[in-house]
């Protein structure tokens, strides 16, 4: 993927750029809002990582300018302001995701990859198949080896979100935001219990575990070999 990183703190932008490059992405770095906007307008990126507070031109202004130019490149906003109202403001200005500083690099990488994928696969298949596991998002039915698995609504949504982002790492906070639809800070990893229940139900009928744990980062479903 071709990624634009707009961040004024050189050390932080260095780390982020390196981590993204390690994953095989091409990263351009801009150190202020004006340069960032110029870059974004002149080239086509898959994802833009945009710091909220930038010299010369504020991150939100950059975002608004981009959207005004009818540029719909997915934007991940980075901010030292972690409040939920700040987050809402960022998303309302046209941001696609929001990550509060400080963050774990894995979290950022996972989110960037999900954002990039969203763009490349706008049309999602009606049926998702992973080996012998088949998920039907419309009928909200899951089966393994032809046998139907009863899931709670929440469990289905966890599975669906993981499946839609197959091959990518989904972090715990991404699950909280998308499956629970509450933006909050889980003091303990209660979410692991939900995933472990889901796993038990899924793996009861099959030998191969479907959901993998990515140490220190989150969960993932392997992309089916097509």
């Amino acid at each position, binding site marked *: 993927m071709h990624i634009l990183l707009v961040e004024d703190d050189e050390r932080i932008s260095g*780390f982020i750029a390196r981590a993204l490059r390690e994953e095989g992405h091409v990263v351009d770095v801009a150190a202020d809002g004006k340069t960032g906007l110029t870059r974004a307008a002149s080239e086509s990126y898959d994802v833009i990582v945009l710091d909220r507070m930038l010299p010369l031109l504020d991150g939100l202004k950059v975002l608004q300018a981009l959207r005004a130019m009818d540029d719909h490149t997915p934007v991940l906003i980075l901010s030292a302001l972690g*409040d939920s109202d700040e987050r*809402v403001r960022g998303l309302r200005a046209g941001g696609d995701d929001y990550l509060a500083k*400080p963050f774990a690099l*894995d979290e950022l990488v996972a989110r960037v990859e999900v954002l990039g994928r969203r763009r490349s696969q706008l049309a999602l298949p009606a049926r998702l198949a992973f080996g012998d596991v088949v998920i039907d998002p419309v009928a909200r039915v899951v089966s393994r080896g032809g046998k139907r698995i009863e899931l709670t609504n929440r469990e289905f949504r966890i599975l669906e979100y993981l499946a839609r982002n197959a091959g990518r790492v989904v972090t715990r906070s991404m699950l909280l935001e998308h499956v629970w639809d509450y933006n909050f800070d889980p003091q*303990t990893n209660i979410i692991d219990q939900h995933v472990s229940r889901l796993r038990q139900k899924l793996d009861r009928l099959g030998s191969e575990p479907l959901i993998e744990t990515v140490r220190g980062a989150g969960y993932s479903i392997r992309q089916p070999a097509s």
Partner: protein
Amino acid sequence: MTLLRSLSFRLVVLYLAVFAASAATIGGFLYWVEIAQPLAEVRSGIRAEAEALDEVYRREGPGGLAAALERRAARNAPRAPYHALLDASGEAVTANLPSWPGTFVPGWKRIEADVAREGDEDEYEALVLDRRLPGGERLLLGRDVDDIDELQERVGDTMLWIVPALLILGTLGGALMSRVIGKRLEAISDAALAVIDGDLSSRIEMRGASDDFDRLAATLNLMLERLERSLEAVRRVSDSVAHELRTPVARLQTTLAEFRDRPEREGISEALAEARRLQAAIDAVLRISRIEAGRHEIVRRPVPLSELLGDVAEYYQPEAEARDQVLETDIAPALTVEGDRDLLFQGFANLLDNAVKFTPSGGRIALSAAAEGALVRIEVRDSGPGIAPEYLGRMTERFFRAPGAEGVGGLGLGLSLVAAIAGAHGSRLAFASDAGLRVTWRLPRANA
């Protein structure tokens, strides 16, 4: 309040006692000057007359005495003179008293002296000295004391209505006084309660009379202002310290992450975990102060509370089951409050998090919500060990961890955050520890 009430009650009682004592003193003095004293004078006057008449009797005999008595009766005196001279057989020799007791009892007595004077039949009271003379005659000698009696009666009557009137007026005055004082005291105690509740900007209302209470209020207000300013300063300092710590911790974390795949990775991941804990603590402190200081803009929207509580319970259900705990809910349907749904979710999640953490395996946790007038009462109860009463008041202190909580993970910031969220929603948390811990949160219901 009871102390205040009893103080003003005691003041009223004291006030009435002083009032009654002064009324009794005035009454007594009046009696002594107007009644006892004149009566004593009349008595000594009659005694002197008796002595003089004894002298006449000795010199001139009964006949002379009778003549002297008649002369005395004819004399015009401010107090009408009365007499009756009876011979040894009890026959009246001379008398202007209409009647007298038949049997002789020496000493003073009162005799009704109905006398026709200036054509009017009048009833008079006479004070009479009854004596026996050496020759066997009986002499009753007296003077009219009707005016004194009348005065005594009038004073008695006056006292009879003036005492209850004074008592009533005194009670009213006392009640009024204690009410006025009570009101001023209440204003002070109201402001103090508001401060205890965390509203440091609360001030005591002044009456503008520059009286003692206004001076007291002004002094206390000055004290509150100092308190507010210094607390604000402390908050600002801890806030900016946390802020300054954020960036270095973020850098430390990214730096450490860089080395995660090196051979020394055991130590590195420990350091990384430490950095994350530090970051979490800093973030939590900043978040709490922002909410407390009202700098976190609360999004006020109607929140379907019943559903939200259901979601919170559902979120914790697997964790409770993994710990062999029973998580029960009793949530009334269609409860709506006004507020920030993310913050409210966070608040209830923290309460359940605490309950799950501190309840032993096999225990019970109950989440209930019901309408209570204009409020919604939400309660989280657990069957854990509860908390010693002396720590109940410190539950929401930052970094406070009760003794015995050492083995349980956490920073001691969870309940501080809940308290800040509750405060931002115009509500308070109440803690009770009977069978386990019980946290009650009353939120104003949305106007529906």
